[in-house]
């Protein structure tokens, strides 16, 4: 493929991935890896390298804005990322020891249940009752942001912090073992278990995914999986898209963000179940 055509096409694609990633708290790998490999014919190693850069670019572009507006909660992010990175390190050591097909199947079923709960919560704009979780109070896992769409300040406090921490550790283990991104799991744990407002969940996930990606970016770099001419249009497009996405998300309802998130959960659930059955979509 001509370099000029490739650069322009990937730049436009990445712009879209950045917008979606910033709104949904995902790194864009779930979108970019299949697109780069299937539609552009990029080798999987280079596509994974581009994906890890796209995660960091989405995070930097989106979290910079979300932290300033209070949508992203730095304390919640740092607290939970301890569990995620610990889990990822555990998963990296367990890889090859524990059979992954059973894990994929279990994960697929867990995600199917998450999809069901997401459907049940579709109409919930904000959590109704105030949390009295001891850990949330002790670690100050609460916040306030101005909701542009609702035109009022929203105060919240995390619930079930211990459950969320364990779920983040599990997500990290699976991420380390199966080599999958865990942005979607982070959002689900914060939305469903910790009952944070959906927009806070995706915005905080945006901050966290940058840290977890940074932890593994060095591997891809030293392996030679990061090709400047492939990654450069991805990084530029995703950064610009992430900035646009933050502007769009600020004007959305929590329920709209959750509706947009649902197809991602369903896709992940199906792909994990199929992988568990030995059928790989990619």
């Amino acid at each position, binding site marked *: 493929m001509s370099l000029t055509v490739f650069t322009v096409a990937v730049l436009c694609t990445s712009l879209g991935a950045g917008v979606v990633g910033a709104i949904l708290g995902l790194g864009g790998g779930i979108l970019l890896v299949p697109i780069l490999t299937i539609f552009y014919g990029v080798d999987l190693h280079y596509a994974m390298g581009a994906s890890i850069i796209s995660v960091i670019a989405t995070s*930097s572009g989106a979290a910079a804005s979300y932290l300033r507006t209070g949508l992203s909660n*730095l304390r919640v992010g740092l607290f939970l990322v301890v569990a995620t990175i610990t889990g990822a390190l555990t998963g990296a050591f367990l890889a090859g020891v524990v059979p992954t097909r059973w894990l994929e199947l279990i994960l697929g079923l867990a995600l199917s249940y998450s999809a069901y709960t997401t459907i049940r919560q579709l109409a919930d704009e904000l959590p109704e009752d105030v949390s009295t979780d001891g850990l949330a109070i002790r670690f100050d896992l609460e916040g306030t942001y101005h909701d542009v769409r609702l035109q009022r300040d929203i105060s919240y406090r995390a619930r079930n912090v211990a459950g969320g921490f364990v779920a983040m550790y599990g997500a990290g283990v699976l991420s380390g073992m199966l080599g999958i991104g865990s942005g979607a799991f982070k959002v689900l744990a914060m939305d469903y278990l910790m009952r944070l407002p959906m927009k806070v969940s995706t915005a905080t996930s945006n901050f966290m995914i940058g*840290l977890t990606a940074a932890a593994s970016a060095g591997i891809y770099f030293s392996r030679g999986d990061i090709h400047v001419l492939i990654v450069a249009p991805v*990084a530029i497009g995703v950064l610009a898209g992430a900035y646009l996405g933050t502007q769009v998300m600020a004007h959305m309802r929590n329920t709209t963000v959750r509706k947009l998130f649902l197809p991602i959960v369903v896709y992940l659930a199906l792909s994990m179940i199929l992988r568990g059955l030995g059928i790989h979509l990619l």
Partner: protein
Amino acid sequence: MPERPVFPVEHLVARVLLVGGLLGLTLISLGLGLYAAHGGFQGHVLALSPPVAGATPPGVFRSLRQIAVGLRQRPLDPLAVGALGLVVLMATPGVAVTLAIPGFLLAGDGRFALIATLVLTMLLVSLLLAGAVHG
């Protein structure tokens, strides 16, 4: 629940992410622009798979030393400028957490200074383990 103003540490981390992102973006764009100006885009058919023999293709840098060599050589290797931008982007989250530590300490929040230190330590351990496995 008490109203809490947006904490200054959030602003500090946001600023680092913004500056790191923009600096990385500028260097990557500059690298691509210089590559185009040197005729790199003319008739270039991009190889989308790694070479079988294990040789390093143009545009792939495996270490900071290789990038430094590309930046020092004359004429300058434009792709090394782009690679430097990617390294800046990769380092940005780590730098943000590093600066959050004194930010939390100055704000009198020793508990989260400790948590940020723990996160930074784990990032460094991950890098060292990656180096041990793949280096």
